[in-house]
């Protein structure tokens, strides 16, 4: 399962940053968000202020707003179990649940959704803990492995580009990020870039919002 391999990469990275497998385990247990956990490693390395953590997390995870919207009705039958579903609605789980509804399962749909969500987190936790343990005694030089985070995001951007979802928006993101990087430098630019993107997108709403 791809999820545990990605978890493995996260485990290796957080271990390399000086945090052992207990940190990997608890991050995957309580934070449980693929891309955000990669960003988390770098927030930890830079020991950023908590306000930065809040803003970064809210914006990096902004796509979850959209995920939730499409499952409000679906989760209603799950009563208390839906709290876990809401907590564990990651990109992977969302993608799997969406294909589920296309295939038209009806009978045990609730149990199936719960099983998918739970197994996904189990794979993720196992992968990341294992990665951190392995990372503590790999016999070879791991310099350069940090690129895993960049590679993950590059792949997501390529996917979005191929799927033709809002290419203009991707472009605006790049322009804002590079401009902010040049003005504020590597340690300060993230918040500025994220803020600028929200403002620019809202200003462009009359133009970009038309087509949908």
């Amino acid at each position, binding site marked *: 399962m*791809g999820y545990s391999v990605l978890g493995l990469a996260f485990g290796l990275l957080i271990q390399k940053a000086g945090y052992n497998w207990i940190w990997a385990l608890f991050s995957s247990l309580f934070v449980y968000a693929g891309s955000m956990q990669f960003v988390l490693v770098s927030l930890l390395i830079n020991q950023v202020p*908590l306000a930065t953590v809040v803003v970064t*997390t809210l914006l990096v995870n902004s796509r979850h707003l959209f995920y939730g919207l499409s499952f409000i009705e679906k989760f209603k039958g799950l009563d208390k179990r839906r709290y876990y579903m809401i907590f564990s609605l990651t990109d992977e789980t969302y993608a799997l649940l969406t294909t589920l509804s296309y295939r038209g399962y009806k009978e045990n749909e609730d149990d199936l959704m719960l099983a998918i969500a739970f197994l996904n987190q189990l794979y993720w936790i196992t992968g990341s803990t294992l990665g951190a343990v392995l990372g503590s005694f790999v016999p070879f030089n791991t310099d350069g492995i940090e690129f895993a985070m960049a590679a993950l995001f590059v792949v997501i951007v390529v996917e979005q580009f191929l799927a033709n979802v809002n290419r203009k928006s*991707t472009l605006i993101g790049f322009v804002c990020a590079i401009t902010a990087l040049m003005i504020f430098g590597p340690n300060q630019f993230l918040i500025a870039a994220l803020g600028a993107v929200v403002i620019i*997108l809202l200003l462009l709403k009359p133009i970009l919002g038309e087509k949908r």
Partner: protein
Amino acid sequence: MNIGHSLLIVAVTAISTLATRATPFILFSGKKRRVPNFIIYLSNLLPPAVMAILVVYALKELSFSSLEGYFPSLCAVGVTVVLHLIKRNTLLSIFGGVTVNMILVQHFHL
């Protein structure tokens, strides 16, 4: 590394993540409440823009003052993109990019 502050960073990330996931269920679960237009708009357009920013964020330490400062990463980005365009296999693309980056960082002192 400061353990107390690190713990707080992880905790705050966890709470903020949960907040983004729970918000739609808290705000819009009533039948009558309609989702405001600008929320739908942002939830469609914000994610691709944020991913582009994260690519730059992941590569923020690039330095163009020496070849070693940017050559390995840019090659690795190229390999990742090309691999993904050809095979469209997420893990393969990431693995390829990381491998190229590790080899270049460790063995080619330019």
